[in-house]
């Protein structure tokens, strides 16, 4: 469609809409629908239909929901760019906010909040306020998100009108879980942004978000939430620091069945909680690894390739952190024919990481199969993987056999990768030179074209000139083709190799050295020229001096520099279940500065006190009397929760040592001591709770849930604490305790 005919069409649409605006004929709604659809379809494909704004608004006085919704969509799309026209919509949107149908109220409120026009904010406050108090959950859900939208348009008006405080009240009390979830999103975002406005208040507010009552109230109803909201809650829980290990175990108990979810996002979010809760308990942390292995492997293979990638990236991170724990699972990391390249690459890295004395043979055999693969990228990666394993391992013969096999394949890229591999091997294990050089000698230098491979070959020729009788002559060939050599890297390497050969076998190479140096001095590349000049001057000083500089006695490389510092790796681990894991980079490396922000709630919460009025030492106890008022517990749950009360603090640190054995001390569910604890602490809990309400600004709201300080513990036999312990105790634990780098 060219511009002219498009204009014509728009004018046509405009005229038709105008005509229909006041019409009350039967069937007019259907015609309107068709016209609206046309407008929306233009909008979708990127044609600017904002010129129809006033006509669209005029037509929107309708009771037809389909039309209304299309109109909302249109208005939402163009209001921002046309604030003057947006004013036209306020009237009917505000009217719809008082409709009898809660759905219309919700839709209208959402559209109203989505206008993103600053000077219309005043019209927003009223509907938003009544929306938050609406009897219907859907409207409150929309309103909670509306507060966040308002904040983005006009932060000060949002906070001045006490909207965050209202959200905080809903967060703890709303019967609709989605309302709670949206309050949580909104508050997290608002507090994070507020840090720049009033750092102290914002920090305190964020502390409250991470306080025990909030976390517990969310955990207690975790199953009411949608999968997505569960992820949100779990993400926040992972930033919470429990007061003692008992609390950690209670939380893990509650969340254990989340590991069995079909949604990988839920499972990964739960795993993050587990990993963070146990980070300072090395043995339990290791058991967490054992526990999450099976669910992760199931998820890797049950979803689409994309989901596989997301899960596998996380498994990859865990494997790199504790390879020993996965050394028996290497077969799970074998590539599958149907895997996309990006999955195969991850698997190759994992195979490299888990290789040890017991499984190297199998893994290298498997990798060698991939080297013959039709997929060139994977073939290359496989050879590199063999190389990396070789650098960790000791069995020289096996590796040399593989190398011979690779070279026999007579594929250029295989030969190239193999040469690079051999060079690295020699740098680490010079004692293998005899075996390796035999391999290299069989390579025809003409088949080597890639700069990296060529450099490797040239380096070896220079380094092992004694072992290779024809080394000078091969190099001579290279020097003769100096002009044709495109890669400066290769030319640099040639200069060094020739000079080194000259020290070892001067008569055969003096002529070649001269040719190389003069070619180097004439080279257009600065580095090549400089190196040639340096060598020339050094040689002028005397051959011995030059040798000391160019070819000093070297020590074998013991460890090749890791590409990532452990600090970076730890940062990535801290950001588990985020893009950082996929990119293998901490977020500061790929996020824009302005969006990065200081969200790091985790870190602060460990240091700062929970807040002046909340007693740190309140035990996780439950006010037994209060359970009757507890709206959040269903009738059947109430009984259970009474029984569960006694899950006081019974573990102490030393008990955990017995965790590995299946005979962990059983935890009594009716221990008298813990019951007495409950009564003794209930008063304290109640006092602190009152303070807490004040802080949250709850005085204006009716509080129906006075006590939610304790976790609604699982009472089903399969998941109670002892069973949890026993179950985990049964997990196969690697023989050695792995030291995690924290």
């Amino acid at each position, binding site marked *: 469609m060219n511009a002219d005919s498009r204009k014509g069409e728009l004018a046509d649409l405009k005229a038709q809409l105008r005509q229909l605006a006041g019409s009350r004929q039967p069937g007019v709604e259907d015609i309107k629908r068709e016209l609206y659809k046309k407008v929306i379809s233009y909008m979708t494909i990127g044609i600017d239909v904002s010129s129809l704004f006033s006509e669209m608004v005029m037509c929107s006085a309708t009771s037809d929901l389909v039309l209304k919704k299309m109109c909302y969509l249109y208005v939402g799309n163009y209001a921002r760019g046309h604030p003057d026209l947006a004013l036209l919509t306020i009237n009917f949107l505000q009217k719809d906010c008082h409709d009898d149908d809660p759905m219309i109220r919700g839709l209208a409120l959402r559209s109203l909040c989505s206008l993103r026009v600053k000077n219309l904010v005043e019209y927003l406050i009223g509907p938003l306020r009544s929306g938050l108090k609406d009897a219907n959950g859907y409207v409150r859900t929309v309103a909670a998100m509306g507060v966040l939208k308002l904040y983005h348009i006009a932060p000060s008006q949002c906070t001045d009108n006490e909207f965050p405080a209202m959200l905080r009240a809903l967060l703890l009390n709303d019967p609709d879980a989605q309302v709670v979830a949206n309050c949580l999103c909104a508050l997290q975002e608002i507090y994070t942004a507020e840090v720049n406005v009033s750092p102290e208040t914002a920090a305190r507010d964020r502390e409250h978000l991470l306080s025990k009552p909030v976390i517990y109230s969310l955990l207690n109803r975790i199953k009411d939430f949608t999968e997505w909201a569960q992820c949100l809650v779990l993400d926040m829980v992972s930033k919470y620091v429990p007061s003692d290990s008992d609390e950690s175990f209670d939380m893990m108990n509650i969340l254990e069945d989340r590991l069995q979810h079909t949604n990988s996002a839920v499972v990964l979010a739960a795993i993050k909680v587990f990993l963070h809760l146990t980070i300072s308990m090395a043995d339990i942390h290791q058991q967490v690894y054992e526990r999450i292995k099976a669910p992760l492997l199931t998820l890797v293979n049950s979803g689409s390739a994309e989901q596989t990638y*997301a899960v596998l990236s996380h498994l990859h991170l865990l494997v790199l952190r504790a390879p020993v724990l996965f050394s028996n699972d290497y077969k799970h990391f074998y590539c599958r024919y149907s895997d996309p390249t*990006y999955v195969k690459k991850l698997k190759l890295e994992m195979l490299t990481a888990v290789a040890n004395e017991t499984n190297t043979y199998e893994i290298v055999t498997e990798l060698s199969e991939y080297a013959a693969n039709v997929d060139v990228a994977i073939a290359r990666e496989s050879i590199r993987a063999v190389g990396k394993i070789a650098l960790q391992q000791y069995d020289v013969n096996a590796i040399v056999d593989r190398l011979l096999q690779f070279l026999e394949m007579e594929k250029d890229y295989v030969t190239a990768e193999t040469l690079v591999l051999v060079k690295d091997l020699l740098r680490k294990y010079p004692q293998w030179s005899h075996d390796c050089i035999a391999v290299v000698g069989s390579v025809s230098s003409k088949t080597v074209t890639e700069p990296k491979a060529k450099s490797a070959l040239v380096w070896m020729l220079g380094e092992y000139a004694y072992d290779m009788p024809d080394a000078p002559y091969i190099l001579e060939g290279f020097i003769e083709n100096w002009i044709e050599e495109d890669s400066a890297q290769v030319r640099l390497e040639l200069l060094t190799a020739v000079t080194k050969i000259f020290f070892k076998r001067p008569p055969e190479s003096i002529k070649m050295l001269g040719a190389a140096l003069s070619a180097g001095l004439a080279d257009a590349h600065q580095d090549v020229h400089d190196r040639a000049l340096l060598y020339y001057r050094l040689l002028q000083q005397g051959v011995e001096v030059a040798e000391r500089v160019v070819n000093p006695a070297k020590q074998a490389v013991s460890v090749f520099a890791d590409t990532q510092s452990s600090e970076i790796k730890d940062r990535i681990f801290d950001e588990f279940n985020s893009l950082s894991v996929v990119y293998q980079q901490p977020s500061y490396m790929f996020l824009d500065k302005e969006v990065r922000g200081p969200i790091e709630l985790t870190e602060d919460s460990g240091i700062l006190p929970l807040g002046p009025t909340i007693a740190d030492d309140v035990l996780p106890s439950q006010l037994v009397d209060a359970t009757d008022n507890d709206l959040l517990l269903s009738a059947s749950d109430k009984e259970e929760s009474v029984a569960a009360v006694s899950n006081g603090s019974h573990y102490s640190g030393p008990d955990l040592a017995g965790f590995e054995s299946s005979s962990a001390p059983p935890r009594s569910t009716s221990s008298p001591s813990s019951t007495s604890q409950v009564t003794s602490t209930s008063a304290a809990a109640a006092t602190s709770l009152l303070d807490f309400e004040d802080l949250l600004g709850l005085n204006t709201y009716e509080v129906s849930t006075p006590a939610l300080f304790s976790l609604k513990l699982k009472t089903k036999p399969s998941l109670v604490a002892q069973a949890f312990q026993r179950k985990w105790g049964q997990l196969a634990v690697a023989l050695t305790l792995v030291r995690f780098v924290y």
Partner: protein
Amino acid sequence: MQVHCRESSVQSSRVSPSPLAHHSLHFGAGAGAGASPICAPAAMISQFFVLSLRGDNIVFRDYRGDVSKSSAEIFFRKVKFWKGEEGEEAPPVFNVDGVNYLHVKHSGLLFVATTRVNPSPALVLELLQRIARVTKDYLGVLNEDSLRKNFVLVYELLDEMIDFGYPQTTSTEGLKSFVFNEPVVVDAARIPSLGPAAMFVQGSKRVPGTAVTKSVVANDPSGKKREEVFVDIIEKISVTFNASGYVLTSEIDGTIQMKSYLTGSPEIKVGLNEDLTVGVRSSAPRDFVPDYSSGNSVGLVVLDDCNFHESVRLDDFETERALTLVPPDGEFPIMNYRMTQEFKPPFKVYPVIEEKGPFKAEVRLKVRADFASNITANMVILRVPMPKTTTRVSFALEEGAVGQTTDFKESTKVVEWCCRKIVGGSDHVLTAKLTLSQERNVNIKKEAGPISMTFTIPMYNASKLQVKYLQIVKKTKSYNPHRWVRYVTQANSYVIRT
């Protein structure tokens, strides 16, 4: 702190000393020096769009307004010309100029989300997948055409599924009350007239997952809603044989999938093999012999691990191996499982590769279908890479071969042998005579292969996991909806090394 970290970039080859207690990095309150930082919790997307494989924008929704409108173009260019060596696909997640692009491919369409924050990739990808599935539930068929014809309905769905970038409700059922547009039903091409169960029927070549192409909101032409529920056991098998024909690795990845068209939310009980074992590997009691007849299955079914859908209650799982649930509308997996216990591979392949004088070689493939003769596998395809010196291939099929085709792809040097149907217990042979451009080929065996195979076998499952019963718990006796339990096994990665 951040400045410090910036200096030690990833490329740096410097080995930093491993710092102690690094998990407790401390950040000051105002660490993100600069303009108003908007940092969000784990789940937030800026835009959602659907592109055709040609890059056309079919659906586009901007939720936050913080990513440029040209993101779809940027994304598509990046995916299309993904850097790297040949055959490499763009990964599902990448970053261009500070914008993160996450995408899934579904039904020949690209479902994409953009964001500037650092969300959980699993969450966004699951969400995209879910959006695709819910859309399919509503449209019946998901493709470019159906999306274009129903984009207003799709926007209705999107508005409720995501608000301001945060996922809201994504259950097909929960969304019903928000959808007012009637779906314009697009005829799915090649849908056999046999009804929704057709793909599981012998001889059909439909792919699982697209079996039921009826919208959850569309009214039946007859005006009457058909009460039915489908339970599909879909198993993807991965087997690798070594050159001697032994199984190196094998695994079954299974899904029990349900699609319900039942009204009144009845509770359903799905009974599995009573002797099913989960999670116990080597320590399983080997000498345990079940003294009751458990159908045809011989021996225990031992799953390595499994997971369950949100709606599944496991009260009777420990005792009766039964799953109880009130199925929500739409298609969803009840349970995923993984099994590495040995099983009988459905196909055996015997390749013979020989040099036949200068410039000549012969590849002979024999396929044996190792399953009952009342079962037929569909679309059995074998792919064999040939030596790169191969210039020409001539094929000889066995006498009386029906429905078999052969092909040699010059560019990739791959021979493809396709058998539309293979009946259980039968053998098939293909002989390929190669003409080579080199006189001597030392490594002819190494250069041909490995053979990979794809197939679909309806009414067959390798794991022996079975749905023993499908009980609908409802008061009225007259209520007796149609219940379909269907099995299908597909090759995921079926590789025979040479």
